[in-house]
């Protein structure tokens, strides 16, 4: 009987543990504080909470936002803040711009509230020079600084300075803004980085690849393009940072260049996901190659590309080739047309 009772106890514990992983126990322990704060909202969805919060004073809402943000795992639970952020934004007219800046500068404010208040300040047409000062403030979260650069109309010269002054992710934010506002100045400063032998941070490299890809996507080749492309290929072999490597391929793929696309597709060191991105970005180039620059070699390449990632929009032009005497008996062509019909997806023509 004693043995039977021991087995009973073991089974009871086994059932209890089978439904709760050790991870859940850990999380329950960690979540106690936020659970207490949020317990009054159990059973309510985001919209209901938002409605409750809109009836509260801005002071009460700010206090609660801070409490929740302090209690949650910022890396994992941010969506809980959505109704509080929306309700706070609705109260933007009750804040003065100086008041918003003062709260942002408060050391007790977390990155979630900081970024919400930056967006509030923007919507109230705040002074961007005041926000510019925050970029130099060490207490301000880096994500908030990115938001300041990403959502304000700084001049091209200011963006150039942000790029030059920052070796971290802010350099990426600066180039993303500059490339859509002043393509030439963007190319000037990223070429300086890419043609120099001076070592720079990976973030600055990524920013430069984003900027140069955009430039050669919209502008024709110039006398340094080949030098830069070769340097990028060498960096791809040398650099161990996956994000740098991937951005090299995205940048090269943007250059509307058949030879570069051939390099990407034929490289054994570039994985399929990156090749798919490159193919989709070059769909128009592939169609134009069939229409205007077809040769045995180019056709063979286009067919290889379509075997890798079939897109139905290319099939009309491939079918036209079957009436061309030169290619009418090309088995690979006929097989690929059939393969595309069975497996192809509709192309996306959103690359300008």
């Amino acid at each position, binding site marked *: 009987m004693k043995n039977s009772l021991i087995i009973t106890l073991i089974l009871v514990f086994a059932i209890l543990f089978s439904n709760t992983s050790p991870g859940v126990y850990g999380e329950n322990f960690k979540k106690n504080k936020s659970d207490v704060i949020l317990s009054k909202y159990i059973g309510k969805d985001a919209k209901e909470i938002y409605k409750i919060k809109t009836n509260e004073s801005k002071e009460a809402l700010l206090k609660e936002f801070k409490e929740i943000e302090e209690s949650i795992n910022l890396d994992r639970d941010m*969506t809980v803040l959505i109704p509080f952020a*929306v309700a706070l934004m609705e109260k933007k007219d009750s804040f003065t711009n100086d008041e918003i800046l003062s709260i942002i500068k408060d050391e007790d404010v977390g990155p979630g509230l900081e970024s919400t208040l930056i967006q509030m300040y923007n919507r109230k047409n705040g002074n961007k020079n005041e926000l510019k000062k925050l970029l130099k403030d060490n207490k301000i979260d880096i994500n908030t600084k990115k938001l300041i650069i990403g959502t304000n109309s700084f001049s091209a010269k200011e963006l150039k300075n942000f790029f030059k002054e920052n070796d971290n992710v802010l350099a990426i934010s600066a180039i993303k803004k500059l490339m859509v506002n002043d393509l030439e100045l963007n190319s000037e400063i990223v070429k300086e980085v890419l043609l120099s032998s001076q070592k720079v941070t990976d973030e600055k490299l990524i920013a430069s690849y984003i900027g140069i890809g955009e430039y050669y996507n919209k502008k024709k080749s110039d006398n340094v393009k080949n030098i830069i492309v070769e340097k990028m290929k060498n960096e791809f072999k040398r650099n161990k940072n996956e994000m740098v490597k991937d951005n090299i391929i995205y940048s090269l793929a943007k250059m509307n260049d058949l030879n570069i696309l051939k390099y990407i597709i034929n490289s054994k060191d570039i994985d399929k996901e990156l090749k798919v991105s490159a193919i989709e970005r070059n769909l128009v180039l592939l169609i134009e190659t069939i229409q205007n620059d077809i040769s045995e070699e180019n056709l063979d390449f286009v067919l290889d590309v379509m075997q890798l990632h079939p897109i139905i929009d290319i099939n009309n032009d491939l079918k036209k080739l079957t009436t061309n005497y030169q290619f009418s008996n090309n088995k690979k062509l006929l097989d690929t047309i059939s393969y595309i019909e069975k497996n192809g997806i*509709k192309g996306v023509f959103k690359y300008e």
Partner: protein
Amino acid sequence: MESRGYSNMNKKIKMLNICLTLILVASLSMNYNGIEASASTDWSGYAIYRDGVLGNLNDHAGLMDEPDISYYKPVIHAPGIGNGVIWDSWDNFLNGNNYIGIYRPKNATMTSTLQDSFVSKARELKNAGLSYNILDQIVYDAGSDTWVRPEHISHIRCDGVVEYVYEWYGYRVGGPDDEWDITRNLTANYWEHSGFFITPRKQH
């Protein structure tokens, strides 16, 4: 008498143990089913959701980067402030909460080619140096371009990953008839993907 009572008690305990064993087996199989049933299909490119962003107030969204959860870092998602869009483990995605399910765009036939497209586009988001945003699904500046490409985006919310990837390929996730495409560079489309017009929970 005592001996018979002892024997009866022993029989009852043994019966109880048999019942408990059956409950344990059923319990284990229930835990197993939720994952195993779908693990036999290729999850690449499917949207995934889990509940319980504390007190179950909202859900969390991600996209599968690999065919099933046994792969190393099979999830691509924007978990929170400390990270942008990252590859992550299944356990980190769940973060101790409950898995809800896998989803695909309603009108999409999930061929391996389309799955490759979804996964590749999500990886572009991962590499775009993005930060987390609470208010809007995506924050971007695409200048005068018609479409919003990953390199235009600066901030993203977890449901923005799913919304952006599917809508890039023309599969509507949320938003009204005329402004559903988050990749269209228009103010109206931006606002329709802001606040809780769309949230992780509303997506599925």
